[in-house]
């Protein structure tokens, strides 16, 4: 099969999924009396604004990191549902640790990132250790660990570390950990962006974590597809028995894969932390679960996940404009996200089968050719 055909097959599936989602959403919109063309028009017009692009990128950044975290485990057939708990815990501990120290900028940022990654790695690694030593399925353990993190550890620690709180007249104000010094915050990318575009509206910031996310994507690709470790990881995912006799230590791989997945998960909260400088009592939650959807949509491929994150971010950001323009209820974006995922799963399976058939055919043909020559 030619490389071109391969590419066509690879792109056909997500394109079909998005197309199917568009048709389905259009039908739903028509059904509830909205004009889909107006709705899509509003979404696109809104998205074409520079400020909205910044919103999309800001939203896509943590989604992407979360997707990569999930994908790392996926590549080994491990289902890390625990990104949610890992990232919240890492976010909180990193925010607190970062507020305690004052260091030169580069060191301060590095310190915060290392703390976040370590906490995420340790928390996900715990699920790996449970699986290896006690045979606890990681799906079960990460779900439990999520609950423990969100309702237990984070709730308790944020009380311990809370700064601010109700000040003055007894009305609420910013609540969360103490703010991190300016030196600990990644600078925004407005300067870079404004070089190629116009000035952003004041108050808009393109998160610097975007660069970090891109680095994570590249490292993910190299680690998984280019290193021996990545080979071991994928081999274990393809066939754990074959990997084992091939010299891959299964227990170590499980713990390592979970830990690395958790380390990346630890970075999910950095987009919010680097912008606000503290862990609030109401952090944005659900990114860990959204990462599963994004990884699924992106087929665990670093570029695919980026597309998935951008599509989800675009839809998330569109919900506001649809409401204000009155073109459609905001729920339509959630429906579109759901339909895209479902359609993608189906389309990928179909493309996968098509590819298998094609390969089996070409292998059989090679066999017959060889016979015919003999």
């Amino acid at each position, binding site marked *: 099969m030619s490389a071109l055909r391969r590419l066509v097959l690879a792109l056909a599936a997500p394109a079909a999924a998005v197309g199917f989602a568009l048709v389905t959403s259009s039908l739903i919109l028509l059904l509830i009396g909205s004009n889909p063309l107006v709705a899509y028009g509003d979404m696109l017009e809104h998205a074409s604004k520079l400020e909205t692009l910044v919103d999309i990128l800001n939203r896509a950044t943590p989604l992407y990191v979360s997707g990569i975290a999930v994908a790392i485990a996926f590549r080994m057939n491990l289902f890390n549902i625990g990104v949610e708990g890992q990232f919240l815990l890492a976010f909180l501990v990193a925010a607190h640790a970062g507020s305690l120290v004052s260091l030169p900028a580069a060191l301060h940022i590095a310190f915060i990132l290392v703390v976040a990654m370590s906490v995420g790695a340790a928390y996900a690694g715990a699920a790996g250790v449970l699986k290896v030593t006690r045979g606890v399925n990681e799906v079960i353990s990460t779900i439990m660990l999520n609950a423990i993190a969100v309702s237990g550890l984070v709730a308790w620690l944020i009380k311990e570390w809370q700064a601010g709180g109700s000040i003055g007249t007894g009305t*609420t104000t910013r609540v969360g950990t103490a703010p991190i010094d300016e030196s600990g915050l990644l600078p925004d990318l407005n300067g870079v962006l404004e070089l190629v575009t116009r000035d952003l509206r004041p108050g808009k910031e393109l998160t610097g974590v975007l660069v970090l996310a891109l680095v994570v994507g590249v490292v993910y690709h190299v680690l998984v597809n280019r290193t021996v470790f990545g080979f071991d990881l994928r081999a274990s995912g393809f066939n754990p028995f074959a990997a084992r006799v091939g010299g891959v230590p299964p227990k170590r791989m499980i713990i390592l894969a979970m830990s690395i997945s958790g380390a990346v998960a630890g970075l999910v909260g950095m987009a919010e932390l680097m912008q606000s400088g503290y862990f609030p009592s109401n952090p944005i939650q659900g990114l860990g679960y959204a990462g*599963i959807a994004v990884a699924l949509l992106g087929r665990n491929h670093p570029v695919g996940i980026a597309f998935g994150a951008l599509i989800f971010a675009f839809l998330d950001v569109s919900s*506001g404009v649809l*409401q204000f323009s009155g073109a459609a*209820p*905001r729920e339509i974006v959630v429906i579109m996200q759901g339909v895209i995922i479902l359609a993608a799963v189906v389309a990928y399976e179909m493309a996968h089968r098509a590819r298998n058939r094609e390969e089996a055919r070409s292998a059989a043909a090679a066999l017959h050719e060889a016979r015919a020559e003999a």
Partner: protein
Amino acid sequence: MRKKWKALLPAMAVIAFAAAGCGGDEGSGASSDVSVGLVYDIGGRGDQSFNDAAAAGIERAAAELGITFTEASPNDDGSNRGELLQLGADAHNLVIAVGFLFEGDAAKVGAANPETSFAVIDSSMIDWAQDPPAPYGEKIAGLVFAEQQGSFLVGAAAALKSTTGTVGFIGGVRGVGGLIEKFEAGYIAGAKAVNPDIKILSEYITEAPNFDGFNAPDRAKDIALAMYEGGADIVYHAAGGSGAGLFEAAKTQSEASGAKVWGIGVDSDQYNTVDPAVQEYVLTSMLKRVDVAVFEAVKAQIDGTLVGGETRYDLAVDGVGYSTSGGFIDDIAEKLEEFKAQIIDGTIVVPTDPTQA
């Protein structure tokens, strides 16, 4: 009491449609060129509580003042609050944000849009980092309530009506900036003002950042039943959607034991909003007049009297209060009005921290 926080389910979740209505109802009487962008907290219209109170306020403003308005509510994870405020500011003179979680975004978007007025419910919109603290902006108003004062009165009502000498309090989420603790503090102080020896059982459903406590009627029911078993005969909740569980528990307990127990509602007059089957167990409700605040903010915008920083809605302006629907507390109304007068004239200062109540 409001946030219906939901973890963003993987998007495959089945979606129920809540057709969020759009567009403003044209006022019948007056007309005005003021247009308002109303941004609800997560969950939007139809929460039978906080957001609906705001909706009632804006609709009254549309009818009486002739303004137009557009509504929106954030994504389920609250990730696009700032974007919504900006979109609101793009097309409206006044943007009203329902809930203190908008504070940071409102300050930022307000600064970027100096021509637009902003009003945030439940936040004073004062920058405490400045010395001395000052409003975030001239046109950024914070509308806050003295929930502790209203809670004091229903606490007093509970103590006056209790026959067992034990009452209960169920908070939705602990640690949301001390917000729910204010309700608890007022309630305890009010109960103790009547009966210094009263026993008060107090429990929260979840702790931040787990916001499930605002939408967990089953857990509220379990807690309430345990409180009734523990001798309480009146329980007050400050737990948003979870409150339904409290009233169910009151019915269950009353029918099982033969001795009537009560629940106390919050935010709106819950006697009128609960399932009719449990109506007779709603002793009273602590009223938090979000609708009044929204209406007044619109009016101030029209009059040009909107001020930056905190505007307080307390007992003195009927921003908080208690309901009398059902007539269950008519016998103690006199006593309650006495407490109310004492709070208004400053004789009683209601604490905001439960440890000082």
